[in-house]
């Protein structure tokens, strides 16, 4: 047990501090934090849906929760069901076999139902192509999309950008507001 605590102390705080102008994540994080406080009472619940990705995007989405980015500190957390999610983070070209599941997930999500399409595949089917019998289409062909994040895969910083854009654009786009 002593070793565990020693390790924690020695590792120190790796989360990149707020307000560091050289650091993109922190500048972004501050904005995101403010936007989430303003519009979502400080808590943004995200349901991640893999609609057919190669799992590369999932690795980068998981990375957003590691201590360097620590998305939790801005009030962002991943939830296990769409029923209490504010936002869907959708990856992959929508596989024909996932089309129904994606639509059902979208329908089960309460308003404001923000959707961020993450990665080149989600944006335009990427290397797998739209002219493919097994692909139903890009995410926006299946459900309404608010923000598209490009990259193969996009970096955690890119995805945070996308989440921020969706949260900030939300009031203007839908007139929906919390509180």
């Amino acid at each position: 047990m002593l070793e565990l605590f020693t390790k924690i102390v020695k590792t120190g705080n790796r989360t990149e501090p707020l307000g560091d102008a050289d650091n993109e994540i922190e500048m972004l994080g501050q904005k995101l934090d403010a936007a989430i406080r303003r519009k979502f009472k400080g808590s943004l619940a995200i349901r991640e849906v893999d609609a057919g990705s190669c799992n590369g995007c999932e690795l980068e989405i998981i990375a957003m929760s590691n201590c360097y980015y620590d998305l939790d500190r801005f009030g962002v957390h991943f939830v296990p069901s769409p029923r209490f999610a504010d936002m869907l983070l959708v990856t992959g070209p929508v596989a024909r076999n996932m089309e129904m599941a994606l639509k059902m997930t979208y329908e089960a999500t309460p308003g404001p139902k923000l959707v961020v399409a993450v990665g080149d595949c989600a944006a335009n089917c990427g290397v797998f192509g739209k002219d493919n019998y097994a692909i139903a289409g890009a995410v926006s062909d299946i459900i309404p999309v608010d923000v598209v994040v490009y990259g193969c895969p996009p970096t955690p910083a890119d995805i945070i950008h996308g989440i921020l854009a969706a949260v900030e654009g939300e009031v203007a786009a839908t007139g929906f507001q919390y509180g």
Partner: protein
Amino acid sequence: MIHEVNTWFAERLSDHGIITSYLEDHHPTHMPCLQVRRLDWTHVAEEARRQDMRMVSLWAAEAGSHDNEALYAYTAFAHPEYRHVLLRTDLNTDDPVLPDISRHYVAAARMERTLQDMFGIRVEGLEDTRRWLKHEHWPEDVHPLRTGFPASTRMGQIEGEYAFLKAEGDGVYEIPVGPVHAGVIEPGHFRFHAVGEDILNMEARLGYVHKGIEKRFEGLTANDGARLAGRISGDSTVAHAWAFAQACENAAYLVVPERAVALRAILCERERIANHIGDIGGVCNDAAFTFMNSQMQRLREEMARVHKDVFGHRLLMDLILPGGVHCDLNGETAMALAENTRALASEVEQLRTIYADHPSIQERVIGSGPVSIEDAKSIGLLGYVGRASGVYADERVEEAYPPYDRLQVRMPQGKFGDVATRVWVRFEEIAESARLICDLLKDIPDGPVITDFVAPEAGISGFNVIEGWRGEIAAWVRFGQNGCIDRYAVRDPSEINWLGLELAVREVPVPDFPLNNKSFNCSYSGNDL
């Protein structure tokens, strides 16, 4: 590079009166492709089983435009000493019928179901004829991998239902999970039958992320193919790109510069470490030991950042091409990378002692989800999953393809086959991979990192295996007109290891399923293609 023709299995078969002929248009020669008669198909599998060979893969291909119209079924077996051998048989194109081999190799069953779906091949004697990749809403008579099926076909939807296994009895209940799971993971459906807390049976229903990858390969150049291969399963991008590139190189008899070979192995071992670290963290997280998860995910992020700095991509995508690699190291970066790897390995060792000294996590992992040695051999489990259950197959050791031929890889050998052993194997592999990386970096050969890849003539095929972090990836490529690929068949280790998971979780409490799932961490995308 040019080996003698491996005639071992052909001789074994001829002892039993099974006539084979050696196919000249297949490379490499030490992994020969033998033509057999269709009526001998099952006997061949029976003989392979008798010789203690494991089944590597099963696939089909229509002859391309270079050949007369024909449909072939292929299978590959591997012997620990006498290595890989491929077998091919002719099928009738109008009414293709293939004898079943799943009674000898249980792992063949899902591959045979895939042949039914994708080629319309009727597998005679196959018990479970339910569709696999083609879900219930697909029209009956579409067979996407037949050449007459245009890749861009838009199909209608039909009504249908998948017939899951049923369980009856007092107190038996079902838990359907998925395809959208609770965590940030890939989609698939698990159907549990449980009594009280314990799982009676788990049936996986996969195919949700089927993206038509094999069809997509048709007509691509080798370079474009490498990009697609790197996205078969994003977490094994290096291993899949390597498997593809080397299959192409084998077909073309191309020798890759030594420096490129060393760099490929460095990338592959770094990928192995990154994934093992992430998964060990995941296993601990599923048992609520969050300290270990935080530490492991931190290490993984640090690796991703190093990869970005040194190689230009956090996940090491698009670095391997047929002919070589698309990256290089100078003396300084090589030294820094070695130093980074050493430091990483020593941190992991330190965390390992904390993990081992923690009864709360040990209680959960020891004895959970065991796979017996007998079962593991029967299925032919691969990678760390196999090595935790007495199947000591590691292509870096057995095939010893370059550069591993000069490195003497030490392979951990476990026998209890539970979560704890799978985690133990992974810790051992991290240490070994770190050693390999440092050895490779110490005397990395000079010279170019890439050479021109010239595609072979139409009809030439190449086979290759690479030990990715999950286990052996088997790749077979055949070239068509204009240097383009006309068929790429690849078998990710997950296709076989999913069966191991289903077996492991029997009698495991439902809440321990995630723990077991993470200790296997099979790819959905790699399975569904």
